[in-house]
Every structure is written in structure tokens, then in C-alpha cells.
């Protein structure tokens, strides 16, 4: 039997960062992944901006709505409803291998090559000192790790009013992409009323993004094609598969797709990794000396429960509550479509009610253009013809505000495995999740404050839409950090208690989930975990 030195499970953001740290230190790494890939849209999505493409391309329906209209969501928002057809493979086969039972919680998980990073909004927030403490990580180490990750993936940002909320000590970044007309207007209004706005605890600035504005490592500087939700053709926005594709060229790295990792058993001299072949559901065991789980908080929770838990064990879960708010900016009504535009978040607004950077909420704003009218037309209580007439005038003034709130442990919010004979794993994950009334009230009050303060910047909310629990796609806390050697917990260095050589590199260990998106932080943590794996003898 072949025993791999280090086996990483997964290919998402944390897996990619752990692997790169290990490979750069000459370790031998075997990456084991479900690795579902989609149709290669690179060959059919032309190298054009969104507006040009809409005017000229005959086969645009293939990637804008999908050949079978899979990009057209009807009824209740399902899993991955916000994904465009080229990103749909992100959730392929998830229902088969990662079955869920939940009344209210609808998570998005991925077995795709690149994991949830396939559809990541590329926002790169550094956690504040208070956040890092609450999460259970080391501030000094995390600050250094953020710099390493930024250097690898390329971050664009601006040292502005909100930098103390967004950038921490980060200094190795490129300049932010330029804002479109509507966001320039919003920012100008913010600067005009800055004192009044800041006195209410709001601070606005550019959103740091894993998006390069200068060429880097063969990736093109951002071209403002507004195709961000459809195509990675220019590779300006970083995706995990870019790092893994590069690592595949290194001698000490091996990538194996097509296997779903079910559980592990740590023996005296090696670890058995039990997998299911996704080709025929047959079982196969891989062997390694050290194991790094980087499959995302829910999948890691499943693997740990199957490996170390018993039938009645439950694990906690954290998830950022999320609400989005379609808004109108009247200045832009009746304006032409802009050719050069960006789909990613352009501005972010922090609500720091206590002026101490703890327990804050964040709203990020997006222009709408590239998501097409059909995705919003159903929100209007009119017939389709009148709705189209009205929306064509209003659409250029449409701004989407996405609001994230922090989440703390609640004893009612848990996951556990229950039997399911229809699943290849023989189980499914039962998720209990809801917000208590106090938290609901706090979040609701904050959302109203966001709506009110945006009016000062001439942005008027149409309605607040709560897409349901789990929709933020930010999950954490399933195998929490603990200094005491408790079962189903992680040592703060990322090692699973009760094991010698099994580590977790994703967000499973987080004891708190700040409103700032977690991806940049979980990548920094993954880098640190990989360093500890190297030292672990």
C-alpha cells in the first residue's frame, strides 16, 4: 500500500492555500478531491464585454440562461439559485453525496474543482483584533498570514475611511478597480455627508477584492467586461483552481479527483482515509502519514462525526445571517447601459454602533447590469410587458445592497448525522438552525439603519429580501477550537483533539463568525495550519 506523506482533502480556498504552503516548503502533497468539473465555458464565452456580447452573440443563451434554462430559477430560491449556468457545476452531485435534512436551513455546498471558491464574490476582509480573538486564532500570526495570502492571490484595495475595518495591517495590495458612475455618485454623497454619517457609526470605503488591476503571474489586469459571474477568461479574479492548476506542474504535488471522502481512522503509523468512488460508489482506502481536512465546515463536520462521533453526537454551527436589498439611485434612471463595468462589490458600509469595531454589520453594494432583467422582473407586481417597460428605465439606477451580520454559537443551532439508506454514505446531515428573537430584532434594526443611511447617499431601498438561513454561504464552527482536549474539537493549532496527525484547515474551528466575509481569513488560517503540519513530527 502507498502511504502519502501529506494528504489534503478538498480543492477549495483553504485546500489551495495549505497545499501551496506545503509545496513551497518542498513537502510531498497528495490532494484528494471530488473535483466535479463542468462544461468548459471558456471555449464558448467570447472575449467581449457584457453589452457587446448581448448585442452581437447568437448563442448567448447557452451561458446567460443555460441550454435547458437551468439559470432560470422559478419559485422558492433553491440551492445555488444565484449561480449563472457556467458556475452551476459548483453544486453538481452535492444532493447525492451530501444530503441534508433541515426545516429552515438551506446551505450551498460544493464538490466542484475549486469548491465554493468557484462562485466566491472575491471580497478579502482582514478580521479585526477583536474578531480574531473571538474566532480563537492568534493575531500576530494571522496578520503575517494575511500578507502571505495577499501576495499569492493578488488583492486590490484602497487605503480609505473604511480601511481600518477592512484592511487591518495589509499593505501589499494593488489599487482598487475604478468605480462605475453610480458608485462614484454614492461615494461622493458619502464624502459630502461624511461627518453626519460617521457620527451614526457608519463608515464607507472600497471593498478589498481578490481581483488584480495590474498583471500578475500571467493573469490579466481587470478589463471591466462585467462578465464576473459568467467567466474567468482573464483570470483577473482569483479562484482556487488557478493555484491548484499551477501546483499540478510541481513534482511534489499530485491531484486525484473522483473520490468523496467519508471518514478516517488514525492507526499507529498511518491514517486510513475511507472514500467512495464517484464513478461507481465503490469503496477505496487511501493512506497517509498526515491528513488535512479542508472540505468546508459542513463537510468537515460530517467527516469528523463519522470518524469520531457516535450516533447522538451533535456539533454546533455558525452562519452569517444575510439580507439583500434592491435599491434605486435616481441619478442613473434612463441612462445608457455602460460598456465598462464591474459585477463585484464596489463599496462597503460598516455599521459600528459602539465605535469599537466589535460585533459590526456590513453592507456591500453592487451594480446590477450583468444579471439581466429576468432575474428581478418577478419582484414587480406587474405583468411582464409593463414590468419590462418600467425596468428598462430603472435598471441602470439599480443597486443591490447585500447585508451580512455576525453569528455566535447558539445551543439550538446544531448539526448531526442521521441514517439515510438512499445516500451512498448511509447518512444525511440534520441541521437545526434559527436565530433567536433578540438577534432577529438586532439584525432587523440594523438593516433599517442601513436603509435609512443609504437614503442620505440618494440610494432608496425597494424592499428587504431575506433569502433564508444558509444563503450567505458562510459556514463555520462545526469543530470548534478548544484549549482543553475535548472530543470533536480542534486544538487552536488546527489539530483535531484525540489525534496525532489529523488537521483541519477550513473554518470549522472558528468560535465566532464576524460579518466580514470569512474567505480571506480561512485562507490565512489554512496557511498557518500547513506550517504547523510541517513542524508536526
Amino acid at each position, binding site marked *: 500500500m502507498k502511504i502519502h506523506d501529506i494528504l489534503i482533502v478538498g480543492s477549495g480556498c483553504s485546500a489551495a492555500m495549505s497545499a501551496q504552503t506545503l509545496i513551497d516548503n518542498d513537502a510531498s502533497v497528495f490532494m484528494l478531491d471530488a473535483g466535479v468539473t463542468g462544461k468548459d465555458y471558456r471555449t464558448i464565452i467570447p472575449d467581449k464585454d457584457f453589452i457587446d456580447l448581448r448585442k452581437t452573440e447568437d448563442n448567448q443563451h447557452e451561458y446567460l440562461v443555460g441550454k435547458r*434554462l437551468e439559470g432560470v430559477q422559478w419559485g422558492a430560491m433553491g440551492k445555488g439559485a444565484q449561480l449563472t449556468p457556467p458556475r452551476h457545476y459548483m453544486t453538481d452531485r452535492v444532493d447525492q453525496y451530501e444530503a441534508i435534512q433541515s426545516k429552515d436551513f438551506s446551505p450551498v455546498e460544493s464538490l466542484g474543482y475549486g469548491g465554493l471558491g468557484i462562485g466566491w464574490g472575491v471580497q478579502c476582509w482582514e478580521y479585526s483584533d477583536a474578531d480574531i480573538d473571538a474566532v480563537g486564532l492568534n493575531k500576530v500570526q494571522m496578520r503575517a498570514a494575511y500578507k502571505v495570502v495577499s501576495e499569492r492571490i493578488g488583492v486590490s484595495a484602497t487605503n480609505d475611511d473604511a480601511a481600518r475595518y477592512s484592511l487591518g495591517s495589509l499593505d501589499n495590495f494593488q489599487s482598487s478597480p475604478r468605480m462605475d458612475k453610480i458608485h462614484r455618485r454614492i461615494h461622493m454623497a458619502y464624502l459630502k455627508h461624511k461627518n453626519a454619517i460617521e457620527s451614526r457609526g457608519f463608515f464607507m470605503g472600497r471593498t478589498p477584492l481578490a481581483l488584480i488591476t495590474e498583471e500578475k503571474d500571467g493573469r490579466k489586469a481587470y478589463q471591466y467586461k462585467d462578465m464576473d459571474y459568467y467567466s474567468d477568461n482573464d483570470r483577473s479574479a482569483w479562484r482556487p483552481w488557478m493555484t491548484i492548476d499551477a501546483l499540478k506542474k510541481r513534482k511534489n504535488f499530485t491531484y486525484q479527483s473522483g473520490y468523496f471522502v467519508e471518514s478516517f481512522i488514525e492507526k499507529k503509523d498511518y491514517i486510513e482515509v475511507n472514500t467512495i468512488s464517484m464513478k461507481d460508489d465503490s469503496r477505496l482506502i487511501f493512506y497517509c502519514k498526515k491528513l488535512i481536512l479542508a472540505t468546508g465546515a459542513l463537510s468537515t463536520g460530517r467527516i469528523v462525526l463519522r470518524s469520531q462521533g457516535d450516533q447522538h453526537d451533535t456539533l454546533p454551527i455558525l452562519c452569517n445571517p444575510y439580507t439583500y436589498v434592491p435599491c434605486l439611485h435616481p441619478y442613473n434612471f*434612463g441612462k445608457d447601459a455602460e460598456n465598462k463595468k464591474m459585477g463585484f462589490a464596489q463599496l462597503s458600509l460598516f455599521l459600528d454602533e459602539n465605535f469599537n469595531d466589535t460585533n459590526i454589520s456590513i453592507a456591500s453594494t453592487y451594480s446590477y447590469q450583468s444579471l439581466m432583467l429576468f432575474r428581478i422582473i418577478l419582484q*414587480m*407586481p*406587474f*405583468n411582464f410587458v409593463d414590468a*419590462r417597460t418600467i425596468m428598462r428605465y*430603472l435598471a441602470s439606477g439599480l443597486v443591490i445592497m447585500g447585508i451580512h451580520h455576525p453569528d455566535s454559537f447558539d445551543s439550538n443551532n446544531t448539526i448531526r448525522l442521521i441514517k439515510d439508506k438512499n445516500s451512498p454514505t448511509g447518512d444525511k446531515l440534520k441541521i437545526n438552525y434559527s436565530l433567536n428573537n433578540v438577534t432577529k430584532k438586532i439584525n432587523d434594526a440594523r438593516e433599517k439603519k442601513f436603509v435609512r443611511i443609504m437614503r442620505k447617499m440618494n440610494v432608496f431601498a425597494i424592499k428587504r429580501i431575506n433569502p433564508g438561513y444558509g444563503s450567505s454561504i458562510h459556514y463555520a464552527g462545526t469543530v470548534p477550537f478548544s484549549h482543553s482536549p475535548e472530543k470533536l474539537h480542534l486544538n487552536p493549532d488546527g489539530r483535531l483533539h484525540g489525534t496525532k496527525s489529523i488537521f483541519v484547515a477550513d473554518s470549522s474551528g472558528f468560535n465566532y463568525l464576524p460579518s466580514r466575509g470569512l474567505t480571506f481569513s480561512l485562507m490565512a488560517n489554512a496557511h498557518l495550519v500547513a506550517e504547523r503540519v510541517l513542524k508536526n513530527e
Partner: protein
Amino acid sequence: MTSGDVEYEALIFGKYLLKKTPNTKAIKLYVDAIENINDVTMHSVKSIQFVCEHPKLLRLVDSGLAIIEPESELRRRLYMMFSILESSSEYHTYFLPRKRSSFYVLVIGITGISAVVRAVVGVIIVRVAIK
């Protein structure tokens, strides 16, 4: 339903949404998409049969359903046709934002008011003629 029925339906819906006959590609895409729907009930197709028999009432029925049954099968199919037409280069001028004078606000206002009136009439038609 035969494919001929669905083609006719596509034609009616396309004409309604564009005020002109949709191209054959849009009709084919619609027919293919409808073939993938497998959760249609007899009750849900009643409104579709009604508007195919009375295409001039489609806008009113759509208006009424938008209020009382926004997730009806008819609305779903109109929505599918809408997305097909929107993602067609030939019809981009119908969907992309275009520069307009400030007086266009009046058009929006009138459209909004007439949409409300249509909705009221549409609700009555749906309640009386279809249910």
C-alpha cells in the same frame, strides 16, 4: 399537449412580450424547455389554454395573476419565454437600458397607472373566466 400546441403557445407569448413574431430559434428553445417541465397539473394549464384561445386577453390575465397567483404556470412559462428573448442578440434593444429624456418619467408613471388598472381588470377575468 402536442409540440404544435407548445409552438403556438410560444408564438402567442413571444408576440405578447415583443409585440412582434418571435424568431424560430426562440420558439424552438421554448419548446425544448417546456419538454423538461414535468410538474404541470391540469388546473395549472387552464389559464394557458384560456389565453391561447383568447390571446388579446393575455396582458390582462398576466396582470391579474401577477397579483393573485404570481407563481402560476402561465406566469412561469411567460417568464421562461422572457428569459429566452432577453438572451437573444436580435432582441437586445427590448431589454438593455437605453438613454431616455427625463420626460420619460411620465411614460413610466402612465405605464405604472395602467398596469394597476390592468391588474384590477385581470383579477376579475381570472376569478370569473378561468377559476
